[in-house]
């Protein structure tokens, strides 16, 4: 089966992203799914960054951390990433060549084509030659990408691409690393942090306030970049303002959200408790990165599950969703807004740098139609309005500020049904606690069962959550091929956990991007599940099938 891993490595500012995007488009337009992942340092220029493409016959959408082809834009990158190609891969560099390297003088060819700025097209050309993508496809893509800068730029890039292509062909002596016939295909290609804003806008979100923080910044940026989405965007002075402002907007009736990462989320914790108390919906994207503290700001991790779950003082229901890919992120975003409204609770969408920056190839990408009906009570049907009216399911009729002549009173203190501060601990307090907790019980019944695959005959079951789904699926498939009886359970709705009977007599492992086994902790507490162990990762790279397979052997 065709499975090509290309790693484009260079310093920040060298343009690996441009090369990566051009190549991605070439493959897609050639009819092949591409999964891309980016790994970069927390700086603006220099350092070791990589843009990784994985091209497969059918969409895999999971990372491979080794490389069949390494394109190194500078010597440091060549040295740093050399080990990825192992014994079988090829490196394309602008410098010295050895048996496993092809030498293409990017910069010289670029200058010859008119500007050093064209070096990336030389490199892209070289890769196309190596993997058997036709040059004219690359030329076409470059026109797409650079057309807006005028003919001269397009022309220069074209010349540059051609010289890179030809030089690589010569160096390869006619061989391509693997030749690739064009196929008919229609793909969508997107990252979760691109689909989440779109889904949010489709869900009627009109307000985002946030403070920049990797890897969440793409979400607020996507709204700001596209005013037609009609979302009011505000960069606040800090994360505390961000969430409180969004909660204010939500109280005034609009679907509102914020997005952040661990440190910023920490600052939002008090307001999450506020949302729980005043029963005001709010959607928070928590895009995880390795901690503690500043940690590795541009890398990925799944270290904040239990932190998010228990975020906020006092007891109140919340919903935690952890999408597995950009399409699932759409579903979860819609679900987040819908359940936040229905239960009048805070909802946390757990993503991570991997999901933020990885582009998946999907056969179709859909955003189901949304309805905003029933978000609020009908004020005309209400006589005396009480924001926290006691009901059987704990859910009170909701009105927003200014919706009608009915007054809406929200109070962070323990409050009466009318929303006024109370010290009535004999009756009101226990009723209100019970009201809030009852919403949580009802919510629990709405939660989807986790994905369960091959459990019947499984001896070993891999349990994951969120963004690791495809890597685990790939690992399980590989192991099954080897004859191992592997099953899979994958959670994308991680709290509350639904009632679930897990078959006994199997070896259960969680697979998580952390070191302490946070999902494992939760499964023990909630299901009394005895676990054989956790396969973790803590170096800031995404979990990949090879690592999982190795850990299980």
């Amino acid at each position, binding site marked *: 089966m065709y499975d090509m891993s290309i790693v484009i490595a260079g310093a920040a500012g060298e343009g690996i992203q441009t090369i990566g995007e051009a190549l991605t488009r070439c493959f897609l337009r050639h009819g092949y799914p591409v999964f891309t992942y980016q790994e970069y340092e927390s700086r603006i220029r220099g350092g070791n960054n990589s843009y990784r493409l994985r091209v497969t016959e059918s969409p895999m959408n999971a990372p491979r951390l080794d490389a069949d082809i390494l394109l190194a834009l500078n010597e440091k990158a060549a040295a740093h990433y050399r080990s990825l190609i192992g014994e079988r891969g090829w490196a394309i560099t602008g410098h010295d060549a050895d048996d496993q390297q092809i030498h293409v003088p990017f910069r010289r060819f670029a200058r010859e084509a008119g500007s050093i700025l064209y070096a990336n097209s030389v490199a892209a050309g070289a890769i196309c030659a190596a993997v058997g993508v036709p040059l004219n496809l690359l030329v076409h893509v470059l026109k797409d990408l650079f057309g807006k800068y005028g003919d001269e730029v397009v022309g220069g890039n074209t010349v540059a691409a051609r010289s890179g292509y030809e030089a690589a062909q010569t160096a390869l002596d006619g061989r391509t690393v693997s030749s690739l016939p064009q196929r008919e295909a229609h793909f969508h290609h997107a990252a979760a942090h691109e689909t989440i804003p779109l889904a949010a806008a489709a869900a009627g979100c009109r307000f985002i306030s946030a403070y920049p923080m990797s890897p969440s910044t793409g979400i607020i940026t996507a709204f700001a970049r596209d005013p037609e989405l009609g979302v*009011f965007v505000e960069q606040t002075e800090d994360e505390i303002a961000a969430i409180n402002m969004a909660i204010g907007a939500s109280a005034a009736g609009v679907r509102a959200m914020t997005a952040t990462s661990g440190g910023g989320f920490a600052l939002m914790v008090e307001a999450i408790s506020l949302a729980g108390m005043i029963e005001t919906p709010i959607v928070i994207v928590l895009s995880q990165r390795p901690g503690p503290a500043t940690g590795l700001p541009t890398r990925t991790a799944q270290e904040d599950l239990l932190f998010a779950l228990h975020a906020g003082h006092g007891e109140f229901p919340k919903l935690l969703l952890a999408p597995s890919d950009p399409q699932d992120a759409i579903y979860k975003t819609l679900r987040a807004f819908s359940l936040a409204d229905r239960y009048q609770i805070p909802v946390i969408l757990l993503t991570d740098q991997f999901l933020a920056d990885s582009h998946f190839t999907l056969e179709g990408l859909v955003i189901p139609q949304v309805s905003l009906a029933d978000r609020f009570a009908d004020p005309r049907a209400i006589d005396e309005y009480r924001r926290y009216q006691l009901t059987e399911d704990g859910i009170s009729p909701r009105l927003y500020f200014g919706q009608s002549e009915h007054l809406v009173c929200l109070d962070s203190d323990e409050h009466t049904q009318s929303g006024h501060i109370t010290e009535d601990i004999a009756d009101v307090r226990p009723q209100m606690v019970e009201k809030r907790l009852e919403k949580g019980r009802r919510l629990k019944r709405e939660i989807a069962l986790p994905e369960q695959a091959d459990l019947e005959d499984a001896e070993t079951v891999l349990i994951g959550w969120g963004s690791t789904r495809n890597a685990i699926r790939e690992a399980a498939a590989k192991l099954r091929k080897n004859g191992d009886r592997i099953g899979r359970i994958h959670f994308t709705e991680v709290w509350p956990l639904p009632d679930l009977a897990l078959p006994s007599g199997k070896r259960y492992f969680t697979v998580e991007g952390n070191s302490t086994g946070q999902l494992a902790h939760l499964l023990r507490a909630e299901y009394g599940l005895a676990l054989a162990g956790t396969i973790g990762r803590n170096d800031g790279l995404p979990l990949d099938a090879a690592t999982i397979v190795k850990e299980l052997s």
Partner: protein
Amino acid sequence: MSTLEEYRSDIENQWCPGCPNFGLLAALKRALVSLDLSPHKICLVSGIGQAAKLPHYLNCNLFNGLHGRAIPVAIGISVANPTLKTIVTSGDGCLYGEGGNHLLHAFRRNPDITVITHNNRIYALTKGQGSPTTRRGEKTRLQFDGVELDPAQILATAIVHGCTFVARGFAGDLGGLANLFEEAIAHRGLSFIDVIQPCIIWDRPVKWYKERAIPVPADHDPADRDRAIALTLDTGDSFAVGILYRTPPKRTFAASYYDRIGNEPLAKLPLLDRAIIEDRLDKMRFDTETPSQH
């Protein structure tokens, strides 16, 4: 016609009998009635503290949120529903201590809200610790040997940030205060009023303040920044009461967004045109392409 009766609340008031907070509340109600605003057209936002209980004591929409966080909440509300009059009433500890950063940046944003500080120079509800406006040397239930910091100068900070309505009020002067509130609420953009509100439990007696609350000099030009700053500065011994600084309203927060979407509460907007969503999805779509050979 709005009436005082409409604003009457039957929630038990938890303030101490005789507290000037009652005067502030009465002045606010009077201003609202005088502006002919109905209760459902206003939203009061507060944090936590004695002052922050105010919204419960008049009939209105209210958001009694977290200590220190009234300002961002009010901004969110005012953006989401610009047809409401959003008014923040909270304490000096809440707005200048815990929430200082929000106020600083609110001056920059200029949202169309009114901010009223009950400045009693003390953390009253937590029983008498120094607040950001407590005078240096004043003894409190935490600073037993006297506060060792200089008081915050938030009025001056508002002025240097170009806030277009900056005033000081005195809770002991119901009529004057009601007038100030009325002008502030009518002003477009952020209007800011620091109200001297003596705490009769933890602070000096009202009388002490009454003797020192001096009206802004009649000849003061409210656009004179230097003079205004000088008037704000709290020397601890006399307080200029009235409008200290005022310039014509400037562009309010979120104005350009409203220019785009029209002047409606966001909750009333229909769902986004589906065609825009489909268009964006299409931009993520890639079909096989066989470029013509040349």
